């Protein structure tokens, strides 16, 4: 087994308040250590995925009556961010693409090393792909067009098969999957963590968590368990639990957002992605508002083009503006923060920007969840009927909404309130670490930024529900 040079024993971490060598959840650990895990879940999700692919390619063109469309866009997609909060990257462990990657690799895998460009720039690749998929979704109407959703799934299948066939482990999942960006950030804010007890790891001579044993393959996402200090990358696949001879792996539940409080090595891509996700969550809702029309037309005027003929260009500009706005706000807040703290130099400002970007994550997650809650509660009631309708006619009288908009609104507001509280608290904790002598001075500009982002979210959510009655 060749352990990468960077994989050396970590220093141990107690960032979530859970002792590094403390006891975790035994029943979760037992589940992850079971030989049926994650296979049982993978078989279920893979079967569901197959049904969805067939449904969107050959089923009803009415997206509300197509099981694949309704299941994908009104159930799976809205629940995804919530799953990262509640269960870390558990979804990634049971994702059908992960299963497919493993099967392809077993059958024909050339198992080449991960390309250097992906290893060095993976987070940026993911960020670019995330923006690209958002752009394509709006300009090609992916999420409302049955066949286009099918073509998207086929395209993703080709990419997944490509990476599974040529590269080792789950290169696609770790370095390419466009979900990986927000999955990493949301899982940092999530309630589940997997860590290794370093005392026991020091006794280990096999390092099976990385290289694998006869019990299970090594970590599919290239992690060395003792070095795992955050929940951004671990997929909770359970391989390390099965392979760890010293029984050093611990899975614990923790307070949401706890990992963000004292990020030890803040990384620029994480912060940039947090800002981008915030902007994307906003624009995904703004396109549904009446406000969108004058916005499109004003942008067309600005660019001196017909906004509807050149809609892809106009949307691209608006998407870039929305994605950049939270980052611009963060940069400004970082500058003010350093001015108020009396430490104004470029390196400090950049460090401030990168560090406080993590405070945006809970609010971005809340905005994402709130938007998902809207789709889930107002559009998913047809899903069971659509499933049955695959072998018959869709019956009359089926409503799409579980709750009226008036009932959905307070739920969305509550989600946003929790997210805002989490962000404000994370910001405060980060300020105490970043500027221990003047935490409030460092904190206030960022608090105002977070409140401004909260106001933007409240505005789009309330306006959307108001306009849709």
């Amino acid at each position, binding site marked *: 087994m060749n352990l990468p040079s960077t994989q050396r024993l970590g220093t141990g971490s107690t960032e979530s308040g859970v002792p590094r060598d403390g006891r975790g959840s035994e029943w979760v650990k037992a589940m992850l250590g079971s030989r049926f895990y994650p296979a049982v879940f993978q078989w279920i999700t893979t079967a569901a995925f197959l049904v969805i692919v067939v449904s969107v390619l050959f089923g009803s063109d009415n997206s509300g*009556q197509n099981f694949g469309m309704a299941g994908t866009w009104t159930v799976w997609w809205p629940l995804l961010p919530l799953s990262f909060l509640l269960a870390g990257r558990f979804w990634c462990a049971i994702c059908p693409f992960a299963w497919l990657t493993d099967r392809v690799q077993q059958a024909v895998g050339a198992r080449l090393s991960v390309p250097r460009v992906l290893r060095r720039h993976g987070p940026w690749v993911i960020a670019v792909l995330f923006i690209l998929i958002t752009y394509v979704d709006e300009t090609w109407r992916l999420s409302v067009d049955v066949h286009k959703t099918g073509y998207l799934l086929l395209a993703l299948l080709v990419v997944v098969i490509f990476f599974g066939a040529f590269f080792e482990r789950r290169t696609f999942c770790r370095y390419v999957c466009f979900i990986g960006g927000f999955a990493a950030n949301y899982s940092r804010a999530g309630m589940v963590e997997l860590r290794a007890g370093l005392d026991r790891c020091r006794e280990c001579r096999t390092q099976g968590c990385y290289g694998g044993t006869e019990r299970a393959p090594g970590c599919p996402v290239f992690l060395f368990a003792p070095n795992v200090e955050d929940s951004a990358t671990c997929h909770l696949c359970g391989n390390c639990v099965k392979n760890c001879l010293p029984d050093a792996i611990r899975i614990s539940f923790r307070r949401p957002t706890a990992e963000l409080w004292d990020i030890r090595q803040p990384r620029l891509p994480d912060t940039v992605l947090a800002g981008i996700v915030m902007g994307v969550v906003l624009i995904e809702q703004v396109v549904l508002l009446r406000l969108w029309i004058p916005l499109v037309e004003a942008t067309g005027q600005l660019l001196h083009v017909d906004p509807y003929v050149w809609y892809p260009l106009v949307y691209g500009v608006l998407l870039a503006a929305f994605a950049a706005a939270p980052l611009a706000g963060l940069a400004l807040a970082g500058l003010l923060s350093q001015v108020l703290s009396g430490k104004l130099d470029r390196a400090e400002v950049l460090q401030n920007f990168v560090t406080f970007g993590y405070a945006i994550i809970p609010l971005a997650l809340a905005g994402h969840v709130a938007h998902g809650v809207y789709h889930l509660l107002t559009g998913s009631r047809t899903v069971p009927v659509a499933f049955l309708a695959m072998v018959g006619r869709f019956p009359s009288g089926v409503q799409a909404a579980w709750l009226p908009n008036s009932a959905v609104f307070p739920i969305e507001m509550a989600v946003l309130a929790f997210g805002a509280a989490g962000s404000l608290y994370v910001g405060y904790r980060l300020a105490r670490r970043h500027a221990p002598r003047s935490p409030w001075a460092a904190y206030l500009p960022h608090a105002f930024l977070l409140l401004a982002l909260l106001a933007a979210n409240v505005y789009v959510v309330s306006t959307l529900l108001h306009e849709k009655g």
Partner: protein
Amino acid sequence: MTGTGAIAAALLAGILAGGASASDGQGAGAPNSSGPPAAATGAYQLTAEIPATIRRGAVVTLILHVRKGGRPVDRTAACMAAVPLFMSVEDALDPTPAGGIDLGPGGDSAVQPACTMAIAGVPSGPGTYAFTWEPDTSGRVNLAFTAADSTLTVPIDVEGAPPSSAILTLFVVLVVLILSTAAWMRRRRSAGAVS
């Protein structure tokens, strides 16, 4: 469709055979008559010539006649893109061309075999026609035409179009190519390791 009377017409790319018509107050008599009856309100009498069944991706012409006091309304012409390119309430509310159906304000009474689409969702008024639709729960879409305070709603069956055979073929070819290349590379590597 005459220069004085007709209002209408949207042409995406061709015409589906088998048209039928429905008019306000007679919506229940339309080919797809199990949907809600057309509204018979307002000062204008609306009549639509619409195929009994439309198919996604296929070309279809919809014609909307607007009359007042039994006489065709002059100086109006509506353009409608015919086939719903989207299938959700959310998208139906989207007025941008990327969303699919666009309806422009009327120009003049001249016959327009094909129109350049403008933006949908314009305020209603003589010669200006809003076009909306919403999916009902019986495998149909309800096409709603509006002129001032007059409305006409016609339910239409929407048939699913098969997926593009070219894209399916491309998918299969790519997968086979990837798998066979990877298998060849693996064999070559393992052969090299043995020798």
